[in-house]
């Protein structure tokens, strides 16, 4: 039900690499799950009634101490001068 090309496109969107060996098993799994999920196609249900008016409840804009920059950076792979660092080169060239 899902093609190899579609799976590759979805993987790219989800930022997941597809290991060449397990693609077939994954294709089979995802296809059977989609078959299972497709059961909802047969049921007829009405559209959501979204016309109800709701009032907006906003909280007061009160300033209070929040998390420190030091704490926020404490789990980062790399940080510099209060910034997260995302390296652009990592020892491999594009295949």
């Amino acid at each position, binding site marked *: 039900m899902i093609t190899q090309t579609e799976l590759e496109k*979805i993987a790219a969107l*989800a930022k997941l690499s597809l290991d060449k060996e397990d693609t077939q098993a994954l294709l089979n799994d995802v296809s*059977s799950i989609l078959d299972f999920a497709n059961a*909802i196609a047969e*049921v007829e249900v009405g559209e959501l009634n979204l016309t109800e008016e709701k009032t907006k409840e906003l909280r007061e804009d009160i300033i209070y101490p929040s998390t420190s920059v030091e704490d926020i950076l404490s*789990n980062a792979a790399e940080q510099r001068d209060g910034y997260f660092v995302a390296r652009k080169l*990592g020892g491999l060239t*594009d295949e």
Partner: protein
Amino acid sequence: MNKIKDIKHLLEAREASCVEVTKQFLSASQQENAELNAYISLTEETALKTAAAVDKKQQSGEKLLPLEGIPFVLKDNIATAGLKTTCASRMLENHVPIYDAAVWESLQKQNAVLIGKGNMDEFAMGSTCETSYFGGAKNPQNTDYVAGGSSGGVAAAVAGGLSIFGIGSDTGGSIRQPASFCGIVGLKPTYGAVSRRGLIAYASSFDQIGPLTTCVEDAALVFDAIRGEDPLDMTSRDSSAVSDQLTGDIKGLRIGIAKEYFENLPKDLADSLQQAIALYQSLGAEIVPIEFPMLKYSLPTYYILACAEASSNLGRYDGIRYGYHAEKFSDLEDFVCRTRSEGFGEEVRRRILLGTYVLSAGYFDAYYHKAQLVRNSIKNQFKTIFESCDCLLTPTVPLTAMKSGANLDPVKTYQTDICTVTVNIAGLPAVSIPCGFDSKGLPIGMQLIGNQFSEALILNTALAFERETAEQYIKTPDRGVKL
């Protein structure tokens, strides 16, 4: 099995200090974990520090709070600042949160003693605990079988006599199913009754935190301690305390039986549930036949919506701000892809892919939008159901624990969630209690589902059953702490 009041008695009668009791639970947990694998980490220092504070308070003559000094296990997807919180994933293997979850804050206020972080399926995705990066938790009733999932380690610790109560999370049955498999009580509260702040998100409109305990009274005590509106979780609401509402009297209660839940049940489960229904009738309840034709659509609805939400929630794991990161990569895009592919296990990757697919252009209407409509329809069907009855009685799971390593294919595993997921779809409260054993001696669980914020009613209904059957159906483990 050990209860909260057993510890309370020891402490108040000064028969043992909290530090002594805590050391017993820590030691038993350390010893049994090699076999049960219930804990991902033990929090010895934190536990002993809390225990010492409880002893000091006890010595000063101050009255102890309901959960003060009680040893417990916290599922490892609940943030504990300064203590590793891994979600049983390589992605967060060494992650130390910088803030406390709301539920952990509430339990710290009561000086509940944290013995350790409970093993679970990775990112709460699974029904056996076997998708855990650290290996699955075993069922204390019979270690050839799984503890269940995703709060498997929590259930194993409580059922194995290693903690008095546990805190788990339930997105599609993850508190109730392991409670059923391990022969203990598991409560999934109404969506919004307990703050989700600090619960590492799987599916935000389904996730809910709740207690696993050895008796109904304890589930009520723990729920009372953790419920409440939290300004930092906009989906949370205040609710009334339930402990003081439990009488065990259910005369005139209307218990709904929907035949759709009982189709194709194995004989020993069917017999147990029939006996439970007969017992309720003898206690004065009225049995009301109910129809629930939408039940069969609940599994596909759940998996579509939960996976969609999961794909969004797990998008945050990119290796840059926290968590696992790839060492070798060609560019930033490759860094993120490798990080995620190496950091996440197979089941998590599968659900992310499924979620991304149902949200993608061209499929959104047929899957995600349609599932939203079906969800709404299921919620409406429950509204109708609760006009004719006060609660529904169903099996918790249409089977008992699977063998360890059974490795069922994904769809077969998903199908075992049929009785539990509907509750999360509608945001309702539900409790699982032990109601028998199968021919292999494995526990069978019965589920009671109530209307929104009817925790008192379903717990009271559960209590009525427990009072008549606890001696038969709640089996003290041959391991763990014997008080």
